[in-house]
């Protein structure tokens, strides 16, 4: 059974240091060629504090916990069977290497389709930097197929 009482519930804030080495590794993993994502001098020359976190990096920061599936488990999804079905971001201030980002995730919906054959969870995360500036707000939808 899905626990719909968790809709609207926010989870304790996650504070993550944006590690330059990991940004460079991410750039390598995705075959990034633009040096502002892995070369400090190139990023600074473009006016950034440090190398830039790419547009999807908020999700990576949100996964920087021992169990990224804790919320899915809490609402009654089997984390080993979930698929990511949708992801969206709104952008404000950029995230750069050396930043410290505070992420607050809220479960915004939990629902079923086809008489429970598909169970969905939607969560929204707000990510703020060390200056108190909003960096990105992102929304993630996952589904468990039974």
């Amino acid at each position: 059974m899905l626990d719909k009482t968790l809709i609207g519930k926010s989870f304790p804030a996650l504070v993550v240091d944006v590690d330059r080495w990991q940004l460079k590794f991410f750039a390598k993993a995705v075959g990034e060629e633009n040096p502002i994502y892995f070369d400090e001098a190139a990023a600074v020359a473009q006016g950034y504090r440090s190398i830039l976190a790419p547009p999807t990096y908020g999700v990576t920061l949100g996964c920087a916990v021992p169990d990224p599936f804790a919320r899915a488990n809490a609402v009654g999804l089997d984390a080993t069977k979930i698929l990511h079905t949708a992801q969206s971001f709104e952008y404000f201030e950029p995230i750069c290497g050396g930043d410290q980002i505070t992420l607050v995730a809220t479960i915004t919906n939990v629902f079923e389709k086809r008489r429970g054959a598909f169970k969905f969870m939607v969560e929204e995360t707000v990510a703020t930097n060390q200056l108190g500036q909003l960096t990105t707000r992102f929304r993630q939808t996952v589904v468990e197929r039974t």
Partner: protein
Amino acid sequence: MKEIFFDQIAIGEQLPSLTKPPITRTTLAYFCGASNDHNPVHIDSDFARAAGAADVFVHGMLDMAYMGQLLTGWVPQTAILSFGVKFGAIVYVGDSITCRGEVVDKTDDDGVYTLKLKLRAVDQHGESKLTGEAQLRVSAPKDAAQP
């Protein structure tokens, strides 16, 4: 990167497409570590088969990262106001993803010039894997910007 001016882009204009090399198991191992998504279904064939999949499959967020590169190859990242996708079909090892974007709307809201894009990623057979949209802020019309 070429500056994008509002008046020089027409609805229907296509972004230069981006084709990524075939995704290998090594790519998935790198992305597992780099993205903090340690779900073994993406890197451990034994686990994936036990979970009922044919083999490991690609992280949706890797496909979305590729789509992000389509955008950041066309405009500076800070021009992206919003970016969203739906993961329509699973991407497998060996697939080569091509990302495409098309301008579907233009808005001048009191001097804030935005383009709305429709996005699609397909595999080497042309099968759709991911669809989405983005809103980008672009430069004021070039003519109006002249003194």
